[in-house]
């Protein structure tokens, strides 16, 4: 049977090549689209993975009355430093990094300033981006982001003022586009806390204690992220809300606890749309393929009416011919599937060479809306290698789909074969 089927495929290759191509294309579409869907989801998690953190804690606060001196953005209101020791006790928490992110409105310019604890994971990551100079050795030292330094003509060893306090530039870092919480100036956490504590504008907006911070990165055990998140939510609940809302709609005083999942759902509305599109295209492709293959096979069988009539005349039963057609259909499916797998590999390999750009939500990387000279800063974009890969699971699922396609084709053709009368065929052919 297989020998006969192979011979049939070889002799009518022009006919069957259409089926094989259609099956191959459907396999490519299904595998590539499924991989794209998962890759988009993976991509939406990349910014989180990039900061080596499982959970981010922020607090929503009030909008400053005016733009002068150091203030905290409304999405990064002060959090009491005492929480650090309590978070450390939560089951599943492996480590904590924290910092103080400030908007500093100086007379000559605006600068985002991050107070960093250089010994924690976040501090080490920022330190690893140093491209020139050294880390701050004292509370009057600062690192400057490369783009900001170029824009303002700042060089190593130069003095710069941040909210009235003079700092010496000891190093240049390149963090723009690489980090969720990208800043212009990096100083010791203690220095940033002093700036914040001494800022009348900030104290008028939010009560700030000397050891307060406003962003916490929690590194949790991968298997306990959910429990740790729930415990954090319990720790930071109920919110000390005054009933107000931030400009982005968050409840003032409430804490925001971001996880990879919440981050994904926050930034992946476009990807969710892609999911629906992928599902629709996959279904249309599959149904289209079934119709094309059935039509093509039916046409071929019509052409082979006489052949089947001869087969019946010499003693083939209907089920013998059905088996023959089933083997032929299956062979086409296998060849088409193999072709599709090879092409899918090629397509995914090519896609993996591309990059994906992800806009970070304003709440997580805030920039004053009224400073719109660089709109990209309001929604900072991070670029990553596109995390698409060939998954064996998809190829197995698609194999099932191709098998179903073959089965449907054979079922439709079986009715035709059963109704074939040898004598009638031979009489009229």
């Amino acid at each position, binding site marked *: 049977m297989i020998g*006969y089927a192979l011979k049939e495929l070889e002799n009518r290759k022009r006919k069957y090549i259409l089926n094989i191509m259609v099956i191959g294309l459907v396999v490519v579409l299904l595998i590539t689209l499924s991989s794209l869907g998962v890759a988009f989801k993976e991509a939406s998690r990349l910014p989180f993975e990039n900061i080596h953190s499982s959970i981010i804690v922020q607090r929503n606060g009030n909008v400053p009355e005016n733009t002068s001196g150091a203030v905290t953005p409304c999405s990064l209101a002060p959090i009491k430093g005492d929480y650090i020791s309590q978070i450390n006790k939560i089951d599943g928490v492996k480590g904590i990094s924290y910092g103080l992110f400030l908007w500093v409105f100086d007379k000559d310019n605006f600068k985002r300033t991050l107070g960093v604890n250089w010994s924690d994971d976040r501090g080490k990551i920022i330190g690893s981006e140093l491209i020139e100079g050294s880390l701050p050795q004292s509370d009057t030292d600062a690192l400057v982001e490369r783009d900001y330094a170029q824009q303002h003509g700042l060089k190593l060893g130069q003095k710069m003022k941040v909210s009235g306090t003079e700092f010496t530039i000891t190093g240049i870092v390149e963090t723009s586009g690489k980090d969720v919480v990208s800043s212009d100036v990096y100083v010791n956490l203690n220095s940033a806390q002093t700036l914040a504590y001494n800022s009348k504008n900030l104290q008028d907006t939010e009560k700030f204690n000397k050891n307060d911070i406003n962003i916490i990165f929690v590194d949790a055990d991968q298997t306990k992220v959910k429990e740790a998140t729930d415990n954090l939510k319990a720790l930071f609940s109920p919110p000390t809300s005054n009933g107000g809302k931030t400009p982005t709609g968050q409840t003032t005083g409430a804490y925001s606890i971001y996880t990879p999942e919440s981050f994904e759902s926050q930034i992946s509305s476009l990807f969710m749309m892609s999911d629906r599109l992928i599902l629709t295209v996959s279904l249309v492709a599959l149904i289209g393929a079934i119709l094309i293959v059935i039509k093509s096979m039916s046409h071929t069988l019509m052409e082979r009416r006489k052949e089947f009539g001869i*087969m019946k005349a010499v*003693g083939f039963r209907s089920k013998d011919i059905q088996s023959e057609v089933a083997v032929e259909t299956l062979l086409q499916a296998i060849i088409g599937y193999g072709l599709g797998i090879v092409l899918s590999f090629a397509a995914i390999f090519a896609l993996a060479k591309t990059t994906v750009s992800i806009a970070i939500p304003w709440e997580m990387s805030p920039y004053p809306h009224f400073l719109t000279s660089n709109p990209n800063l309001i929604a900072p974009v991070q670029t990553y290698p596109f995390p698409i890969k060939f998954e064996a699971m998809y190829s197995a699922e698609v194999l099932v789909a191709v098998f179903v396609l073959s089965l449907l084709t054979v079922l439709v053709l079986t009715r035709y074969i059963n109704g074939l*009368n*040898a004598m009638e065929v031979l009489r009229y052919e």
Partner: protein
Amino acid sequence: MNEIIVARNLSKTLGNVKAINAVSLDVKKGDFLAIQGSSGSGKTTLLSLLSGLDRADAGEIKFDGEDITSMSEDKLALFRRKNVGIVFQSYNLIPTLNVLENIALPLFPDSRNKKEMLERAKMAAEMVWLSKRLNHYPSELSGGEQQRVGLARAIINDPKVIFADEPTGNLDTETGRMIMDLLKKLNKVKGITVVMVTHDDGMAKEADRLIKIKDGVLTNE
């Protein structure tokens, strides 16, 4: 029992035409029977009923004592495979198979040993002098060669009866003669019963026994 085929009161209507009308016929084992009639006389229809290719509307056919008129389609197919060889006027070869494969076609469904199957096909090909054309395709063969392939295909299952429908109808006289000689050889040497339909007087006279058919009715014997 000496009869291989016993047909009683066979009738068959095709469209509005009564192609076979109450035909009764006995064929003895080892017979070479010719059924002669003009075009449209019902001779091919009668052959298709006797060979189990088609079903009669009425009547009964016993083949070697077994009633084939009540068999299911699948049983009838198996019956043809085991007992019957059919030679068609238009050869009816499968164009995508070569000579050897066309001859072996009836063995395809139940042959598990491909080598043995091809050996049997080669022996059948040898009997019809086609040993040198085994790898050729039907389109590369003359009419006589194609009919010899058809004949080899008909004998590969060692049938009890060969039904030949105008086997020389599409051939020139000399080639027709060769096919006729082969049929006679199979009948005499191997003892296979042959039922042949023809409109040709010369060919009909070659048979041991001749019956004539007109308008679906046997007219004489």
